[in-house]
């Protein structure tokens, strides 16, 4: 996934624990991680230090960075900076092709163009020293679901 570096980050600062940091560091390298349990196969996101299905240890897996909008909203009122200056914008739950869901903004298209089932692909935006978070935009090509 593409990584956008050097853009001024005015959104909330993230303070990941050492256990959570690999996700954000991987994003800064252009890799989108989720977790899969080596014992029971359960897939999960957000990252945790245990498998929520069997209580075993969770292990990292790499996603292809593509998925479909599962549900979304167009935020039209938010009093907090910097969001209030970016209205309206889309927040979506994206269901990755690997089956886990992630929240993110869908950018680069008019908010009204977003619909459930829209195919999207991830890109990362640096949000601190060596860490980044995923965002989403309309996927190039690929079938709609």
């Amino acid at each position, binding site marked *: 996934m593409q990584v956008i570096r050097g853009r001024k980050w005015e959104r909330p600062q993230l303070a990941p624990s050492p256990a959570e940091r690999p996700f954000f560091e991987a994003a800064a390298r252009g890799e989108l991680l989720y977790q899969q349990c080596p014992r029971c196969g359960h897939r999960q996101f*957000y990252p945790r230090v245990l498998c929520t299905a069997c209580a075993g240890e969770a292990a990292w897996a790499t996603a292809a960075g593509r998925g479909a909008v599962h549900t979304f909203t167009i935020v*039209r009122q938010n009093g907090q900076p910097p969001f209030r200056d970016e209205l309206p914008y889309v927040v979506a739950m994206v269901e990755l092709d690997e089956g886990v869901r992630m929240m993110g903004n869908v950018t680069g298209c008019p908010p009204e163009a977003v619909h459930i089932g829209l195919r999207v692909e991830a890109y990362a935006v640096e949000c601190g020293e060596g860490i980044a978070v995923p965002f989403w935009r309309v996927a190039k090509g690929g079938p709609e679901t």
Partner: protein
Amino acid sequence: MAARDPVIVGIGLSDHPQAPHLDSIQHHVQAMQRALGDAGLEKRAIDGYVCAGMEAGAMEAVFMAEYLGIDHRYIDGTMTGGSSFEFHVQHAAAAIRDGACDTVLVTYGSDFLSRRGRTLGTGGFRGTGKVSGAAMYSAPYGLSLVGDYAMVARRHMHEFGTTSEQLAEIAVGVREYAALNPNALYREPIRVADVLASRMISDPLHLLDCCVVSDGGGAFLMTTAERARDLAQPAVRVLGAAGGQTHWSIHQMPDYTTSAGAKCIPEAFARAGVRPADVSTLQFYDSFTITVLVLLEDAGFCKKGEGGAFVAEGHLRRGGRFPLNTDGGGLSACHSGMRGIFLIIEAVRQLRGQAGVAQVRGANLALAVGSGGSLSCIGAVVLGKE
């Protein structure tokens, strides 16, 4: 009724919906004083204390127990957001039945409107400081609390064809009751068209799909059926209570059209030995119109996906089969951040036959369902007339 069956014997509301003369603690105090007066109980009779609130967070119960001077042998500070008080009824009922205590006071107080204004649902609640844990996977994207519920509404519309008009019916019906309540924040009648014409906050939820922000506190007293015989008011029985949780953060909701109510509301019915058709009035958490719709389906009043059509048939309106939120609800009357306590208090008022012009004729069974977080923690309580 067995001697130790749990009952509600006193209720009190603090000044609302706008009370700039009270802070959160004073809301707790005033509500407690009024509940004691209502029940005809002396403060020294209280030997159990339960509360939740946003003043002292996780320490609310012990902080308030000290402030109020409660000498308790049972305490519970369960905090599940707005549904805390439905969980409290479940816990206090078990404690009373078990003999852990005899008389439990539950209180809540909030000066949200006077102190923090109307920003609760549109960003102000979440702030922009440093975030950790599960919030790191949502905070960068600027989702408001209204937005959480908007994602549920959007998915419900997608799967079942639910419409904005159907959701608006809920707001219209609750406003009809607010018009009867002199203490409601908004009392002017509204029509479906008014809801649809109100500004979009977070698609597909309009301003009038969202609850008000107010000040307000409440208190109720629970004791044994035996002790209730000597008290001032008719006792209201706790027939069944159950709770559950599917997630806390909206990005972890397993199914965006179904809440934990799908399991716990039927469980509360089973414990009470009643069915949805037996219920006289619904007191449902109406943080948003969609909240009511999801809970209604999860409770089994109609099948999943049929809530929109069910509501449009007018069943929840005044004069309908299941009148909803007869005090004007959070959508129009009073929502000071954690509304769950008002559901219990209004249910008791109805079952006592003390609801005045809003009285549901022959009300003998009420269902109160609270929702905390983002349709995250659901608590259901079935209350019945003695």
